[in-house]
């Protein structure tokens, strides 16, 4: 089967007021290979040239690159280029065929000597997803007794989408979920963290997914919010080995327009690029992302 191929370009630039002494960085910029997604090529172009770099696979199976700059610089540019082939989903999971949410929760409760489900690790609070009473108040009544878990998660996604405004200036990555709740606005990370917090407060496993959206939608479809930077959404675990992605920012179930890069408990596990710098004074960050269909894709004009 042949899917659609996309070229992903993700550029990160740090411009410093002074020159740095040394710096070290960790990048989580390589799209994953999944049943419905294949990584055709990937390269990380770093300017100036790093003094050395290593690669490894992290605890969640994401590809991570680490690099160190020993030469001094005032400007660092990291360009991640990938070609990803995305296949249409074979079939959608029918929300009403998923188990009742209480059953998913109870299956994870620990009993001595009982079988262990690795998904349990996504059901606990994590550094960016702290559970608070406000979270429970917000999601009250969404999950009715014996509701199928995916139906509940979809209803929750609709509620977040309807009650919150997308506002890139309102929050930063350190804004806690409680403030996002109080102000009713935020960006894709905030909405993803909020939905995860809601699910985990019920004892349900949910992952944070970092990835990309197609920059220009196919004809006849609206442009999705969050396409000019890396995007984030949620994956909810519906049954053993069945995870379903949900994008609360756009109120959609991700499809061929979403490219998955990495997942973890929250943003902290998969932030695309972070670093520690010695010297260099203040700096500003510029990020640009473009996701274009490749011209050779059959049935599509360039």
């Amino acid at each position: 089967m042949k899917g659609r191929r996309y070229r992903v370009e993700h550029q990160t630039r740090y411009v410093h007021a002074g020159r740095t002494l040394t710096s070290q960085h960790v990048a989580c910029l390589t799209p994953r290979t999944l049943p419905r997604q294949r990584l055709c090529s990937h390269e990380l172009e770093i300017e100036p040239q790093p003094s050395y770099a290593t690669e490894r696979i992290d605890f969640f199976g994401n590809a991570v690159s680490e690099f160190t700059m020993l030469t001094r610089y005032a400007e660092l540019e990291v360009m991640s280029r990938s070609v990803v082939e995305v296949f249409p989903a074979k079939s959608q999971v029918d929300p009403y065929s998923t188990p009742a949410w209480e059953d998913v929760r109870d299956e994870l409760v620990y009993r001595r000597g009982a079988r262990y489900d690795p998904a349990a690790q996504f059901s606990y609070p994590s550094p960016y997803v702290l559970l608070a009473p406000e979270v429970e108040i917000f999601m009250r009544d969404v999950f009715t007794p014996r509701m199928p878990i995916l139906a509940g998660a979809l209803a929750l996604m609709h509620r977040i989408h309807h009650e919150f405004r997308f506002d890139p200036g309102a929050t930063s990555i350190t804004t806690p979920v409680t403030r996002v709740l109080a102000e009713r606005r935020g960006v894709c990370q905030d909405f993803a963290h909020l939905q995860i917090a809601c699910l985990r407060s019920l004892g349900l496993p949910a992952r944070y997914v970092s990835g990309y959206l197609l920059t220009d939608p196919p004809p006849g479809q609206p442009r999705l919010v969050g396409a000019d930077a890396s995007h984030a959404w949620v994956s909810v675990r519906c049954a053993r080995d069945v995870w379903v992605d949900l994008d609360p920012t756009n109120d959609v179930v991700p499809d061929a327009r979403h490219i998955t890069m990495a997942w973890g408990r929250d943003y902290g596990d998969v932030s695309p690029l972070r670093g520690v710098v010695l010297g260099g004074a203040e700096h500003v960050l510029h990020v640009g992302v473009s996701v274009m269909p490749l011209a050779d894709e059959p049935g599509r004009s360039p």
Partner: protein
Amino acid sequence: MKDTTAEHGLDAFLSAYTLPAGHFDELRAADGSLREPWRQFTAHAGDLTPAALDRAQARIARQIHENGITYNVYAAADGPSRPWTLDVLPLIVEAEEWEPLARGLRQRARLLNAVAADLYGPQRLLEEGLIPPALVFRHPGFLRPCHGVTPAGGVFLHFVAFDLARGPDGRWCVVGTRTQAPSGAGYALENRTTLSRLFLDAFRGLHVQPVAPFFDTLRSTLLAAAPCEQGTPHVVLLTPGPYNETYFEHAYLARQLGFPLVEGGDLTVRHSGVFLKTVSGLRRVHGILRRLDDDYCDPLELRSDSTLGVAGLVDAWRAGHVLVANAFGMGVLESPALFAFLPGVCERLLQERIQTPSLATWWCGEAAALRDAQQRLDTGVVKPAFPDGPMEPVFLAGVDAVGHQEWVTRLATNPAPYVVEEYLPLSHAPVWEGGALESRALMLRVFLCADHAGDYQVMPGGLLRVAGADRQVVSSQRGGGSKDIWVMSARNADAGPRPERRSRGDEEPHGTQTTSSRAAEHLFWLGRYAERSETCARLLRAVLTRLADPGAETSDWRASLLRTCRRQELLEPVDDAPASADESSAAVERALITGLFDRQTRHSLGFNVEQTVRVAGAVRDRLSSDNWRLLSRLSQSIVEPPDGEAGLDDALDVIDQTIIALVAVAGLEMAHMTRNDGWRFLSIGRHLERLSFIVSTMEDVLEEQSSSDPRVLDWLLDLSDSRITYRSRHMRAPEWPAVVDLLVLDAHNPRSALFQVAKLDKHLRLLPDGDLAEVLTQIDRVRRACADFDVKQGGLFGGVETPAELFGAFHGLALGISDALTLQYFSHVYELPHATATF
């Protein structure tokens, strides 16, 4: 043996010694008689009368003060640093009781190491349901970046501590686990050193097992495990710095183990290898014994808001290029919630039954355990299961009915973050307090280190903490004290008793140790502040002893002396003083004496002495204990001014004491310190400071040189400690040219400016790999100018024609040297790493 116990032993106190019901009595058996170890102690300890115990307690207090043993209560720059407290009576444990306990703790250490290997590897314990996943994945101490790493030899835990308590039935049980960077072993050794001297006969008679060999094992374990292709591995001790509450111990252990003490900023990671920034460039580090908790170790991969760690350290460790003891991620083993699961895990991993029990603990996240815990809510203790948990332990027996119901509800609705522990009444031991024996609750911390055979060695002894005046709560943060613990040797054992020695490093403080850039800078400033304190004290003495001279108020010498005091900022500068400022001798005297003890003002003697001691504290691992004792006496004289308003007598007395202590410190530097790079930076600091002071003072006097009053020159000589030299050479009263010759140009007077330049020249040329060509040329120029200079006729070379120009050249040189050192050797140490912005 003479029967003196009835009069002098502890028996005499027994009738008045009480302890609350339900606690094990460490002192007495059930029939009220002394327990066996105490009977033996009494027989050997000699005089145990109240007067003798008071004397002993006073000696301990003095030793602790002089050795500078502290426990900083709050980890802040200006937080109080409280002297350590050690009770005069040890706790004595017989070999028959200790050995099974030690065996059990060794087993537990092996067990925890095996648990670590599983959690950071295949996680079979999770798969088989032997450990709940929440206790791993919800615990902030489980570090995902460290999963999949197998450290050298499979050893994750090199150094472990267990907290033990003894229940009413007399059995010890484990109540706490320290697997990241346990503290207290250094305090335990220091306690032992102090107490074994005090009761040497009892120490010998009871065949007490020495604790010092334990540190040798720790040292050789780390050296053997550090990956190093050839030669001796370079192992360092990583400390969060002088503001940490147990910094004293870090410095102490560094000396004991012979490892350099370093802070995160001293280390850097290059190509997945760890290096120490030294004055001779980067030096490879093969092993790190860390006193930094996991979170703080690597801002890149662990906690990005921390500046204490080393960016990239986790990666270097993962690559197997450096030993980190303990391995990262061991915090997950500290959860009290694990206690309930260890017996099962022990049988699975070691095929053994667990020997030493843990305190009965129920993790509420397990339904069956929660039911059990709910049965015990009347008397139990609720604690957080995770270190980021919501609260301090709650003793439910002390909670009212409403609070109790709240806990019932809370545990039912959100049980996972809590454990319930059985309430354990702690055993009590006697402490000597206010002239009587009082009973105090106690808790014991026992230390283990990995040996070469895949097992662990137990320190025979440990740190025993006793509750404060409320007698129940045991915590170093909240007050209370400590005791030494004596473990007797098995009968027939050849114990070879001897008083414990502190460290081999004591006699030879720092051998051929490498000098980190930070240590070099601290030593440089130690030299400068010590010298500055001394000149400041000499100046004060010169002024205060002369102010009352007849005719002083109108004399030239007084004007120049006051000018020097103002420039040194011992008096307010004229510009700032109100026009009507009282310039009478009495007023000046008062201002100088008040300023003397003022530690806030930047140029006061009090400030300079305090800075000397502070900077010395930052390089404590490099100073001998004698040196430290002198410094602590020094600070005491200034820190504790006489009661009430100090008079001239008091002030002069303090100044004399200060000068004597400073001279002794300087003498120790010359007589006892190894001539390595560190000593060189210290000496450079001293010579540079002395050079600046002489030259500035000469400038102050320059204006009076035409004056015929010989007393101007007299105080100048006094200030430079050169009066005797002058007298031995010149029979007449001081004259300007001869004084300039002696204080500036004489190459043999250790106080002259030229002498300082010659010394600086020598030291700078011996510094490693520096590019100091420019300052060395500057030095040559100044030396040539001096050689040519005639006080009466001026000079020709180097553009120096007048004394003022000559002094200017010296000043320029002092600045040039200081700048060159900063640029070459000290720079970048204090640059703090920061995280990049994220999107």
